[in-house]
C-alpha cells in the first residue's frame, strides 16, 4: 500500500467530514466543538505555568519586606511604607501608605510618582469600584483624593484592588500595620528554597486528575455520530472500498474533525483569553497577556489531539465489521475479563508504594512515578467500569416497565452506557482523591490560632498604645458593635538587659482584663499574675518564678545585646495575686503580668502596643465595614485581622482554589458531552419511540426509562469512583505521611455533584424526547 | 380461470407417463387432479391425444387388459417421448402480445372521449381484486398445487393492476399526448 494511497484515503475521509451533506457536517461540527472545548482547556492548562510564573514575578517585584531586625537608617534613598491592606466585603484590597524620605526613594512597580499626603493612586478596578457608588463605605475608609492609576506592571490581574496613598509621620517597626523602611522593592530573599515535596505532588496530582477527564472527553467527542459514519462507510464498501480503505477513510474523517477542533479550540482559547481579563474567579483575576501557552506544550497538544482522535477511531472500529450491506458488530462480544482491569490500579499502587512516607522527611517524589501511578489508578476506573456495569446489569431483574426497558437496553449495550459516564466517574474519583489529600494534609498547612471567633470577630492592632482608650471607645460606639476591649502588651524580663526569661505584661482596665482571666476582685492599681494554660512545662514555671519575684522589680521591654530596650522597672507586689485564665480568653497565649493602668509606670508606656478586640452583631450587613471605617479614622495605620480558629498557608489555599476551578470546568465539559451523546442516541431511536407511542406507551414510561438508563450506570460509576478515589486518596496521604481519614460529607458532596451533572443532562434531554415522540415522527415512513 | 387452457395437453400427458405406464383413464384422473381444477379433461380428448402420440411414436402400448372398450390399453412413454418432453420443458414460451388488450383500448377511449380514465382504472382494479380475493381464498384452503396455480394467476392479475397504477400515475401526461 503506497503512501499516496494512504494520503488519498485520508483525504477522502477529510472531504467527507466537511462535505458529507448535512448529517456529515453536523457530525463534524459536534466533534469539532467537543474537541475544541477540550483543546481550549488543554491550552489553558499549558498556559497555567506561565500565568503562575508571571504573577509570581509581579509578586516578587513589588515585595516590600525587609526581614531586617534593625530598621534601615533613614537616607535620601529610603521610603517608609505601611501595609494598610483591607477588605471590602469578601474582596481583599491591597493597600500601602508611602512616605518617601528623600528624592531617591524607590517607586513601587507600576507607579511613576509618589502620591502626596491625602492623595492616592488606585488600580483601575479599585477606581471603578470607588466610583460605582456601591462602595460608599470603602470610599469613607480611603478618604484620599485619587490622582492617578497604577500600571499593569504593579498588578497581578486587571481586577485586583490596589491603592498606594501618600502619608507622613510613619514609624518603622512600630505597632499596628506592618511598617518598614525600604531602600528598594523586590523580594530580598528570592524563592530559592526547594519546593515542598507534598505541595509538588499535589500540583502533579491536580493536573493529572483534571486532564484525565478532558482526555476521556476528547475521546468521546471523536466518537460523536459514529453510527451514522459507519453506515456511510458501509455504502462505500458497496461501491468497492475494502475494509482497510474504510478504516483509513474513517481515520481521515476523525483527523479532519480533530484538526477543525484544534482550530476551534484555539479560537475558544483566544476568545476566552479576551474575556479572561474581565472575570474574577474565586477572587483572582488574570491579565490575558499572561495566558500564554508555552510553545512546546501547545505543540504537544496540537500533535497529540489528532493522533489520539485517529487512535480512538481505529480502536472503536475494532469491534465493528463494516460490510457492504451494513454494519456488523462482532456478534457476541467476549465477556469482559476482570484480571487485567484490576491490574491497572494495582500497578498504580505498585508505582506509588515505594514513596510512602516520603512527604515527612523532606524527601522528594519522583514526578514521573507520581504521574504514572495516579494515571494508572484513574485509567483503572475507566477499565473497571464497563466490567462492573456489565456484571451488575446482567443480574438485574426486570421490574416495572420503564425499568425493564432500561435494564434490557443496558444489558444489550452496557459498553456504550459505561462509556458515557466514564468521564464523570474519572473526574469524581480524581476529585475525591484530591479532596482526601487536601483534607488530610490540611493539618500540615494550617496553624491553630487557639482563638475563639465567638468571643471577638475582629482584632485591631493599633500603631500607638496611647490610642487604645479612644479607639476602643470609638469602636464601641460604632453601629453593630456589641463590645470592644482595649488591651496593651509589652514584654517582661527579670533583668534590665539580656533577660533569660521572657513573659508578657498586659495592661488594661479591670473589665478588659476580665476578658482574659477570672479576677475575684479588681480595682485600678491592682496587678495580677497569670500562668498561661499553654505554658505548663518545668521551664515555663521556672521562667515565671524568675521574673515574678514578689517584692522585687521586673523589667518591661528589657534590652538585649544588640537591641536597645526601655527596661522600665515595675514592682511585683509582695502579695502577688494569681488569676486563672479563662478558657475562652481573648489572648489565649497571654502569660505573665496583668496590670491595671494606674499600676503601670508612665515610662513604660512607649513600649506598649495596643490592640482592640471587637465583638459585633454579625447578622448586620456590612458590620465589618463599619468597624474598619472607624478603625481607619482613629488610626490610619491600624492593622485589622479577622479572627479565625485556624490560619492556612497561602500557597496551599491557592492550590485548593485552582483545583475547585478546574473541577467545575471539567464537570461542565463532561456534562456537555453527555448531553450530545444522549441526544444522538435518542435521534437514532426516533422511529422506534414514535412506534412505541403509537401503541399507547405513556411518555412518562419512556422518560423514566431514559432516566434509569443514565441513573443505573452513573450510580455504579460513582460507587466505583468513590471506592477508587478513596483508595487513591489513602495512597496519596500515606505518601505525604499524613493520617488517613475519610471525610464522608465531602465524598458524598462530590459524588452528589457528579450525579447532579447526569441528572441535569437527563432532564435536558426530556424536552427533545417529548418532541421526538410526537406522532408526526411516524410520518417519515 | 385457474386451469391450464393454453398448455399443450399432449406434452402434459407425456410428462405424466414419465413416472410409469398408465391406463388412459388413470391419465385423465391424474391430469384432472393436478391441472384441471375448473374443467375436467374430456376422456375423448385423452383418447384422441394418445392416438396422435402413438402415431408419432412418442408412446407405445405397454399392454392390453382383457375386456371391452378402448380404455383397456396401457401406455408407456418411449425414448423419443422423453426427449420430446425434455425439449418442450427446455423451450421458452413466446410471451403473448398484450399490446392490444381490451384494457388498453378502454383507457385510451376514455381519454379520447373526455371521460374520467381514473374511474376506469378504479373500477377495473375493484374487479381484479374481486377475482384475486376468490383466488386468495382458494389458495388458503387448497393444497400446494392449488397454491402454485393460484399464485400464477394472482401474479398475472397483479401485473395488470401494476400497469393500471402506473397508467393512473401517468394519466396527466397521457391526456395531453392523446388529446393534443
Amino acid at each position: 500500500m503506497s503512501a499516496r494511497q494512504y494520503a488519498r484515503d485520508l483525504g477522502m475521509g477529510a472531504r467527507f467530514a466537511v462535505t458529507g451533506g448535512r448529517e456529515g457536517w453536523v457530525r463534524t461540527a459536534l466533534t469539532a466543538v467537543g474537541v475544541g472545548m477540550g483543546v481550549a482547556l488543554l491550552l489553558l492548562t499549558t498556559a497555567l505555568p506561565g500565568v503562575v510564573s508571571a504573577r509570581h514575578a509581579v509578586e516578587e517585584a513589588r515585595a516590600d519586606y525587609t526581614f531586617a531586625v534593625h530598621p534601615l537608617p533613614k537616607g535620601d534613598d529610603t521610603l517608609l511604607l505601611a501595609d494598610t491592606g483591607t477588605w471590602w466585603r469578601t474582596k481583599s484590597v491591597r493597600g500601602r501608605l508611602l512616605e518617601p524620605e528623600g528624592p531617591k526613594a524607590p517607586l513601587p512597580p507600576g507607579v511613576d510618582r509618589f502620591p502626596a499626603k491625602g492623595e492616592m493612586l488606585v488600580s483601575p478596578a479599585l477606581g471603578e469600584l470607588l466610583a460605582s457608588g456601591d462602595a460608599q463605605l470603602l470610599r469613607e475608609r480611603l478618604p484620599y483624593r485619587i490622582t492617578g492609576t497604577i500600571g499593569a506592571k504593579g498588578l497581578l490581574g486587571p481586577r485586583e484592588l490596589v491603592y498606594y496613598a501618600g502619608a507622613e509621620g510613619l514609624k518603622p517597626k512600630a505597632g499596628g500595620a506592618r511598617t518598614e523602611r525600604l531602600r528598594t522593592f523586590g523580594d530580598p530573599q528570592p524563592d530559592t528554597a526547594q519546593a515542598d515535596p507534598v505541595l509538588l505532588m499535589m500540583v502533579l496530582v491536580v493536573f493529572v486528575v483534571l486532564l484525565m477527564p478532558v482526555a476521556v472527553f476528547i475521546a468521546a467527542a471523536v466518537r460523536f455520530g459514529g453510527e451514522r459514519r459507519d453506515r456511510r462507510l458501509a455504502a462505500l464498501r458497496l461501491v468497492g472500498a475494502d475494509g482497510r480503505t474504510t478504516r483509513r477513510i474513517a481515520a481521515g474523517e476523525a483527523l479532519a474533525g480533530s484538526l477543525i477542533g484544534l482550530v476551534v479550540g484555539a479560537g475558544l482559547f483566544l476568545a476566552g483569553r479576551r474575556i479572561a481579563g474581565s472575570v474574577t474567579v474565586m477572587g483572582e483575576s488574570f491579565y490575558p497577556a499572561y495566558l500564554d501557552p508555552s510553545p512546546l506544550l501547545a505543540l504537544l497538544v496540537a500533535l497529540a489531539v489528532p493522533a489520539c482522535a485517529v487512535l480512538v477511531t481505529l480502536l472503536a472500529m475494532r469491534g465493528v465489521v463494516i460490510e457492504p450491506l451494513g454494519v456488523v458488530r462482532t456478534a457476541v462480544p467476549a465477556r469482559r475479563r476482570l484480571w487485567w482491569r484490576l491490574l491497572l490500579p494495582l500497578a498504580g499502587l505498585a508505582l506509588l508504594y515505594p514513596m510512602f512516607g516520603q512527604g515527612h522527611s523532606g524527601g522528594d517524589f519522583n514526578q514521573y512515578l507520581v504521574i504514572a501511578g495516579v494515571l494508572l489508578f484513574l485509567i483503572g476506573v475507566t477499565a473497571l467500569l464497563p466490567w462492573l456495569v456489565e456484571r451488575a446489569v446482567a443480574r438485574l431483574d426486570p421490574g416495572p416497565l420503564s425499568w425493564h426497558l432500561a435494564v434490557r437496553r443496558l444489558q444489550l449495550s452496557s459498553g456504550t452506557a459505561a462509556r458515557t459516564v466514564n468521564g464523570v466517574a474519572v473526574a469524581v474519583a480524581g476529585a475525591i482523591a484530591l479532596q482526601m489529600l487536601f483534607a488530610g494534609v490540611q493539618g500540615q498547612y494550617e496553624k491553630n490560632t487557639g482563638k475563639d471567633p465567638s468571643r471577638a470577630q475582629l482584632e485591631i492592632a493599633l500603631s500607638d498604645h496611647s490610642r487604645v482608650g479612644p479607639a476602643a471607645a470609638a469602636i464601641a460606639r460604632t453601629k453593630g458593635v456589641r463590645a470592644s476591649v482595649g488591651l496593651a502588651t509589652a514584654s517582661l524580663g527579670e533583668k534590665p538587659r539580656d533577660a533569660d526569661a521572657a513573659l508578657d505584661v498586659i495592661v488594661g482596665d479591670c473589665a478588659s482584663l476580665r476578658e482574659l482571666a477570672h479576677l475575684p476582685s479588681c480595682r485600678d492599681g491592682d496587678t495580677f499574675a497569670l500562668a498561661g494554660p499553654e505554658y505548663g512545662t518545668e521551664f515555663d514555671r521556672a521562667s515565671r518564678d524568675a521574673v515574678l519575684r514578689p517584692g522585687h522589680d521586673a523589667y518591661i521591654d528589657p534590652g538585649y545585646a544588640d537591641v536597645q530596650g526601655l527596661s522600665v522597672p515595675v514592682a511585683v507586689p509582695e502579695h502577688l495575686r494569681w488569676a486563672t485564665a479563662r478558657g475562652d480568653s481573648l489572648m489565649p497565649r497571654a502569660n505573665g503580668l496583668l496590670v491595671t493602668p494606674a499600676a503601670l509606670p508612665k515610662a513604660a508606656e512607649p513600649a506598649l502596643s495596643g490592640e482592640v478586640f471587637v465583638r459585633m452583631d454579625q447578622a448586620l450587613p456590612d458590620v465589618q465595614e463599619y468597624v474598619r471605617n472607624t478603625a481607619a479614622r482613629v488610626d490610619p495605620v491600624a492593622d485589622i485581622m479577622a479572627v479565625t480558629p485556624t490560619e492556612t498557608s497561602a500557597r496551599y489555599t491557592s492550590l485548593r482554589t485552582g483545583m475547585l476551578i478546574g473541577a467545575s470546568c471539567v464537570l461542565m465539559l463532561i456534562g456537555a458531552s453527555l448531553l450530545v451523546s444522549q441526544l444522538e442516541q435518542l435521534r437514532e431511536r426516533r422511529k422506534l419511540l414514535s412506534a412505541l407511542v403509537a401503541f399507547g406507551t405513556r411518555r412518562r414510561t419512556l422518560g423514566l426509562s431514559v432516566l434509569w438508563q443514565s441513573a443505573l450506570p452513573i450510580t455504579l460509576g460513582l460507587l466505583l469512583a468513590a471506592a477508587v478515589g478513596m483508595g487513591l486518596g489513602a495512597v496519596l496521604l500515606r505518601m505525604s505521611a499524613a493520617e488517613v481519614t475519610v471525610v464522608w460529607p465531602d465524598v458524598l458532596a462530590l459524588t452528589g455533584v457528579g450525579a447532579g451533572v447526569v441528572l441535569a443532562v437527563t432532564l435536558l434531554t426530556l424536552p427533545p424526547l417529548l418532541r421526538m415522540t410526537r406522532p408526526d415522527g411516524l410520518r417519515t415512513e | 380461470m385457474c386451469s391450464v387452457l393454453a398448455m399443450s395437453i399432449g406434452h402434459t400427458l407425456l410428462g405424466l407417463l414419465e413416472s410409469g405406464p398408465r391406463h388412459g383413464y388413470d391419465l385423465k384422473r391424474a391430469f384432472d387432479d393436478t391441472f384441471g381444477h375448473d374443467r375436467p379433461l374430456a376422456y375423448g380428448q385423452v383418447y384422441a391425444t394418445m392416438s396422435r402420440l402413438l402415431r408419432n411414436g412418442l408412446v407405445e402400448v405397454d399392454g392390453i387388459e382383457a375386456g371391452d372398450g378402448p380404455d383397456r390399453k396401457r401406455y408407456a412413454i418411449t425414448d423419443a417421448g422423453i426427449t420430446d418432453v425434455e425439449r418442450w420443458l427446455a423451450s421458452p414460451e413466446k410471451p403473448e402480445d398484450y399490446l392490444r388488450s381490451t384494457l388498453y383500448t378502454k383507457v385510451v377511449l376514455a381519454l379520447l372521449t373526455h371521460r374520467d380514465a381514473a374511474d376506469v382504472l378504479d373500477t377495473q382494479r375493484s374487479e381484479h381484486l374481486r377475482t384475486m380475493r376468490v383466488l386468495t381464498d382458494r389458495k388458503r384452503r387448497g393444497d400446494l398445487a392449488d397454491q402454485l396455480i393460484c399464485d400464477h394467476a394472482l401474479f398475472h392479475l397483479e401485473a395488470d393492476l401494476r400497469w393500471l397504477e402506473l397508467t393512473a400515475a401517468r394519466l396527466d401526461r397521457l391526456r395531453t399526448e392523446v388529446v393534443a
Partner: protein
Amino acid sequence: MTPPDGSLLVARDLRKSYGPTAALDGAAFSVHPGEVVAVMGPSGSGKSTLLHCLAGIVRPDSGSITYAGRELTTLSDSERSALRRGEFGFVFQFGQLVPELTCVENVALPLRLNGTPRKEAERAALTWMERLEVDDLRRKRPGEVSGGQGQRVAVARALVTGPRVVFADEPTGALDSLNGERVMELLTDAARSTDAAVVLVTHEARVAAWSDREIVVRDGRSRDMERSA
C-alpha cells in the same frame, strides 16, 4: 355516504394538512368487526395519514371519527393513548420491535403497558407466538431473527391484547413474497378468529387481496369501491 349499521370505526369528511399540503381532503372510512379493509392508493396519496387519524395517533384538522360510539377527535392525548393501548393493535412496515428486548418481551409489551404483571403477560405472549409459529424465537433479540420472523413477532405483538381493531401499515412492505403471504395469512386468520377489524394500508394488490373490501385514497380523498360500484 352513510355507513351501514354495526360499523365499529367510522370516519367522515376527514381533513388534515401538514403545512400547505393537504394530506387528507374529505376522506371517509368505515369498518365492521371482523372485517379486513384495505386502504389503497399511490404513494403520497394520504393512506398513512388516514391510518394515523383513524388510530387516534394524529388528530385531524376537521371531520369526525367514531369508534364504538365514541368521538375520537375530542379525546385528549392521554385518553387516545389509553384507547390505543387497550383497543387497538399496530403492525408497521419495519416491525419496530424494541431491539434490546427479547421477542417474547416485545410481544408482551402492550400487555405490560396495560399493567399486566410480567409473568402473566409473557405467558399470554407465548401462546400468541405459538399461534404465529415463532415461539421458538422467544429468547432471541429482534436483531437475531429474519425479517419475516420479526414481522410475525410484530403481528403477535399487535394481537396480544385482543384488540378490536388492528392497524397494519404496509406490514409486508419489507418482506419477500413468501414471507409476505405468510404474514398476511396469519394476520387475517388471527384477526378473523377474534372478530377484530383490520385496517390494512398497502399499495400491493396481492396483499390487498387478503382483504374483504378496499377503499382507494387519491389526492386525500377516499373512494369506497364496493359501495360506489
